[in-house]
């Protein structure tokens, strides 16, 4: 210690004597949105200075400075303020920057030695790479526009960079690369500065001298991972204003990892729920609601494969391993024509390809969950793999709790994802993604349920010509669920499920800069598995029972064109023709005309043989979005979409459960149809540092599925007698503002959203609330989400988030009576009251060394507190007699406590 103190004194002394001039170097200049690394590099260049520092230990957030004849000492004091770094002279030439506590002689010597030995690897500059190209000769040119086509790709992996933006710096007009990394620009003859960027890559400023149609492929260099993080929201920032599509949100895996999470496990769906326009009905809710839509109205795809249950353990985790993802996109109510089959939204989740160059891994270990992911080349630069496994094992904690019921409960899940990608060449690529999972939940030995998913998705991508690309996805999947009572005379197992095969080929045609055309077809074959009840255990007297389900095919043909009409004005036009055919085998029941559909009005039974068509539906789905740019940083957009849905989640519980039944449309369940209207204003401030949007939406729906009072759905071979068609309407407004960069980053989103249903039945049993409009189970008018993240230093981050939602509607007793010694509550009309509001504060603190540039094993530690102030948010209110035999209302809080979690994550 004494030695170090002496060193510091000597440094200070030597500074004052020898290096006064260097430290007093007057610095002047304006430095906007620069990292410390960039600032130091610039100062070295402009003032002939030398800084030695550990690039892994300095912050990489963007800052802006204005210096007017400040001494270097003052400049360094200002720029390092708030960090844990300090600066000092090492010798006449060198200024060292080290964490304050590490400013020792040994560390300084070691730092200087490493620099001078060339062992320090500097990050790639965030300064754009300057390049220049000339196409044709000016003498031959005319005043017409020329087309420049090409692709943007990763120089390292040769993979296309999807969504990279190319902006003409003089006109601020631009485009983005498509799913194959392709772009097309229309440029007048002459010289243009095109700025090309994508998150995680060093930007390119290309001077294009164009005098003829031509092509240009642009490689991008990967930036250091720290820099990737800095600009992680850049795509969202730019896209929100620039893209023609309204109501689309992007989430990066890094962003998902930064948010405080339940038990320290970052989660896609929990992150989605923080977006404006997205809500959930409680802590134990599988699925999410978008713009007043039911959970089954969201198309969720995983590498192109539809996923029918995206949740683990009652919705606390999603099925997506965040370590394996490349991008998550949510289309809220408005989606391009290539997406369909659901009446509210599309959530597309894509995995990244395994590393083609070297073996890497990533994993984590928490108190109740763990995960491991490996990736690497099978044949270098040709074939790569990626495989990950996750599991949760909370049983050892459950066994510590006092509550006997909880102690005898069990929960468990395990899932595995694997992907193999093979590149035939730069134009043709195929990948195979496999996913398998099993969930098990048992409550107090009284009942339990389990569900499994197996999925395989084969994706082919080909670039046929500069204008034409082809892609196809083939999927096969099985989803099975099981409800059981483990012991006793009535012990049983009830299984059901869904098998499907899905095929979706499409072409992407880019004839000119003004058009981006997608044309494709898709088909899905559904086989719902029968519900089978079987006895469980030797004592069970339950008899076997089987209720057969339905088979159907769904198909669609679609065409989408992103059209640039004029500068700043573009539209996306889409049309989709979709249909389905319900077919045998099936036992089909008929009911008396003009009578309610119930067991007493059944008048006939028909046995439909294999493949015999029973019912067909089809219809057009027009899609249109338009964008008008109001300058460089703002735009107005509007959209209209018609969406049709041919498969429905049959679930008469307050929230969806894993054992709910998927029902294809049939004679009694017509397709759901919704008309979605939206308009929005998008504004970026301070060059994208702040991103804001205000959107309004209205949705008109038909043939929604609702239920008769106290409908019994399980093992019901007359399930149509319990269902009611309804019309629906939803409307609302969404406001969102994000700060995307800097030490402080975060977002605020507020949603006002209403969602109503109305039956139109003729008979008493078919009229809910007298055929008046009533709120849906997920009608939550006000929702506010605030997320803040503070980078304390390059490795330490504090993140805080707060969520508020209006309590969801419920039905409460308005009277009661006794009958045959049973006290029965008499309930109000449906959903006329609300449970108390939901709010929760989550906090996480992360010490992250995984992003250091050095190779080898690196770790991060995350301490999180979910529901920090232990709010007992009601999941449900229910009414029954208490232990003293008195009628009582009870509040069930699924997470009525603070849930701390300590998670160690690692990469290698």
């Amino acid at each position, binding site marked *: 210690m004494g030695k170090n103190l002496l060193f510091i004194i000597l440094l200070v002394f030597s500074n004052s004597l020898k290096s006064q001039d260097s430290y007093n170097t007057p610095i002047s200049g304006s430095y906007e949105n620069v990292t410390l690394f960039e600032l130091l590099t610039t100062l070295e260049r402009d003032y002939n200075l030398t800084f030695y520092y550990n690039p892994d230990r300095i912050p990489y957030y963007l800052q802006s400075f204005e210096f007017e004849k400040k001494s270097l000492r003052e400049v360094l004091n200002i720029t390092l303020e708030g960090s844990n770094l300090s600066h000092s002279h090492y010798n006449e030439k060198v200024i060292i920057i080290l964490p304050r506590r590490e400013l020792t002689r040994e560390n300084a010597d070691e730092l200087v030695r490493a620099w001078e030995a060339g062992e320090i690897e500097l990050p790639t500059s965030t300064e754009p790479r300057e390049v220049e190209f000339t196409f044709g000769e000016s003498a031959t040119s005319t005043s017409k526009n020329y087309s420049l086509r090409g692709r943007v790709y990763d120089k390292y992996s040769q993979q296309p960079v999807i969504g990279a933006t190319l902006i003409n710096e003089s006109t601020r007009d631009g485009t983005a690369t498509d799913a194959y990394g392709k772009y097309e620009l229309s440029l007048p003859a002459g010289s243009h500065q095109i700025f090309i960027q994508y998150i995680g890559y060093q930007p390119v400023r290309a001077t294009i001298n164009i005098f003829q149609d031509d092509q240009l492929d642009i490689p991008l260099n990967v930036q250091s991972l720290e820099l990737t993080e800095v600009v992680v929201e850049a795509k969202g920032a730019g896209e929100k204003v620039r893209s023609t599509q309204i109501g689309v949100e992007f989430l990066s895996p890094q962003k998902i990892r930064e948010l405080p999470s339940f038990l320290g496990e970052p989660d896609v769906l929990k992150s989605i729920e923080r977006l404006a326009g997205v809500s959930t009905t409680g802590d*134990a*809710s599988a699925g999410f609601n978008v713009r007043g839509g039911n959970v089954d109205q969201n198309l969720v795809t995983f590498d192109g494969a539809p996923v029918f249950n995206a949740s683990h353990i009652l919705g606390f985790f999603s099925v997506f391993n965040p370590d394996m993802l490349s991008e998550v996109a949510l289309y809220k109510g408005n989606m391009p024509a290539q997406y369909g089959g659901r009446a509210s939204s599309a959530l597309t989740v894509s995995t990244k390809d395994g590393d083609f160059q070297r073996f890497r891994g990533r994993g984590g270990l928490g*108190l109740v969950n763990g995960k491991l992911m490996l990736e690497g080349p099978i044949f270098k630069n040709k074939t790569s793999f990626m495989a990950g496994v996750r599991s949760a094992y909370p049983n050892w*904690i459950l066994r*510590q*709790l*006092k*509550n*006997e019921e909880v102690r005898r409960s069990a929960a468990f899940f395990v899932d595995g994802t694997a992907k193999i990608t093979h590149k035939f060449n730069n134009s043709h690529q195929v990948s195979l993604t496999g996913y398998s999972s099993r969930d098990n939940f048992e409550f*107090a030995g009284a009942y339990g349920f389990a569900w499994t998913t197996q999925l395989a998705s084969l994706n082919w991508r080909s670039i046929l010509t500069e204008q034409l690309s082809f892609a196809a996805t083939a999927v096969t999947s099985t989803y099975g669920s099981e409800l059981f009572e483990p012991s006793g*005379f*009535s012990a049983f197992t009830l299984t059901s499920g869904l098998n499907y095969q899905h095929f979706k080929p499409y072409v992407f045609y880019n004839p000119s800069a003004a058009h981006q055309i997608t044309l494709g077809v898709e088909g899905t074959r559904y086989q719902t598995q029968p519900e089978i009840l079987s006895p469980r255990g030797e004592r069970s*007297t*339950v*008899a076997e*029972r089987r209720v057969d389900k339905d088979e159907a095919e769904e198909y669609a043909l679609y065409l989408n064109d992103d059209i640039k009409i004029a500068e700043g004005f573009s539209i996306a036009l889409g049309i989709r023709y979709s249909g389905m055919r319900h077919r045998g085998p099936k036992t089909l029941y008929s009911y008396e005309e003009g009578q309610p559909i119930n067991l007493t009005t059944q008048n006939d039974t028909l046995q439909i043989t294999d493949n015999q068509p029973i019912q067909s539906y089809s219809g057009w789905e027009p899609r249109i979005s338009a964008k008008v740019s109001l300058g460089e940083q703002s735009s107005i957009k509007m959209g209209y979409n018609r969406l049709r849905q041919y498969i429905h989640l049959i679930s*008469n*519980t*307050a929230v969806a459960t894993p054992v709910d039944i998927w029902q294809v449309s049939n004679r009694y369940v017509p397709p759901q149809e919704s008309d979605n209207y939206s308009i929005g204003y998008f504004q970026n401030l301070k060059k994208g540092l702040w991103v804001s949007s205000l959107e309004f939406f209205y949705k008109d729906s038909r043939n929604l599925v609702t239920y008769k*009072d*106290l409908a*019994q759905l399980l093992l019901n071979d007359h399930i149509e007698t319990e269902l009611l068609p309804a019309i629906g309407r939803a409307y609302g407004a969404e406001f969102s503002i994000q700060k995307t960069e800097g030490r402080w980053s975060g977002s605020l989103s507020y949603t006002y959203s209403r969602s109503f249903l109305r039956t139109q039945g003729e008979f*008493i049993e078919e009229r809910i609330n007298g055929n008046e409009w009533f709120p849906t*189970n997920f009608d939550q008018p006000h929702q506010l989400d605030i997320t803040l993240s503070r980078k304390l230093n390059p490795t330490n981050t504090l993140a805080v988030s707060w969520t508020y939602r209006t309590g969801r509607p419920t*039905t409460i007793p*308005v*009277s*009661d*009576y*006794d*009958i*045959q010694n*049973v*006290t*029965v*509550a*008499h*309930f*109000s009309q449906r959903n006329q009251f609300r449970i108390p509001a939901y709010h929760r504060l989550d906090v996480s603190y992360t010490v992250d060394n995984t992003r250091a540039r050095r190779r080898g094993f690196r770790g991060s530690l995350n301490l999180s507190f979910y529901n920090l102030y232990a709010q*007992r948010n009601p999941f*449900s*209110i*229910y009414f*029954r007699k*208490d*232990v003293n*035999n*008195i009628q*009582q*209302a*009870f*509040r*069930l*809080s*699924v997470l*009525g*406590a603070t*849930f*701390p979690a*300590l998670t160690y994550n690692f990469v290698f």
Partner: protein
Amino acid sequence: MKLRHSLIFGLLLLLLGFNSCIEPFQFERVEPAELLVVRGQFTTTQSEHHLQIGTSGEYKRVAFVPESGALVELFAEDGNSAVYEEREAGDYYLAANSICAVIGQSYFIKISLTDGRVYQSTPATLPAPVALDQIAFTIEDGFSANSLGVVLTKQFVNINVALTPPKQTIGPFIKWDTENVYIFIDLSCGPGEPARDCYITDFPNQQDIFLYDGSDNIGGQFFQKTVLSKRINETHNYRQYYSVYQKSITEDAHRYWSQVDQIVNQVGSIFDVPPAPVRGNIFNTEDRDEIVLGYFEVSSADTLRITTDARFIPFEQRGRPRCGNIFQRPDPLPSGCCECLVLDNSTDIPPYYW
């Protein structure tokens, strides 16, 4: 470092330990629904048929304002009819022999209130009885909540019945009602005052509804079901009778009781069906939309009984008798120890089967 890990781990368990998931909740007061309630049965048992008419009140009060002066008539499919007699306000009786309960014949009631409103039940056909084959008891572990709501593992006497339901396309529809009667012998607290035997009727599973609908297609096969579960307590120091009334009910009555079962056994879980009004089989002849609470049940019944005494029950589970023993009496004595007739549902007249 080890200490730090222990602290973190301890903190985790401490916080998890605070997790109290279920608690009573006070809802905003709502305007009570004052609706007509009709409850009654017409059965094959050789006893009077009883029917009550009243109006419901505020929730949690189980209010029942009797409806007096109504004309209540029972109509049979064969054209016979009989009029109920009102003995107390809202209590109407029909002698057992007024109308014969004939299997396969349909019956309905008509209620004419003093204000002119007329109500009627949907006609219900009296189903054939299903015989009970066996009754037995077992002693098994189960869950029980104490007064603080803490759930503990305790032992229970389970009453199991066995039957062979007939094989038929639909049904049979069965509802089991149960009743427990135990003897309680009070103390001779005053000079010359004899100890008294009281017979106390208990409904241990008052809110549990046991139903069968034949949908499992086990007609013609032997079938067992637990229909009563009573936690072992100090009453098991004495003799007990468990009666099981196996009632064959109509399909609509089964629908009604299934819905009541969904309502009364809500646990707030994700599997709970959203609650809703339960409609019975009584309707206003002028306004079908009016909700009438209750049910007029037409059923045929079979009864079996089983008895237990202290010999069959594990001693350590029974606990100390309510009034102690001759060596040690609680001070003060609990109510009923000196006069057992003050206890709820108590009588000193033994049931006919005792």
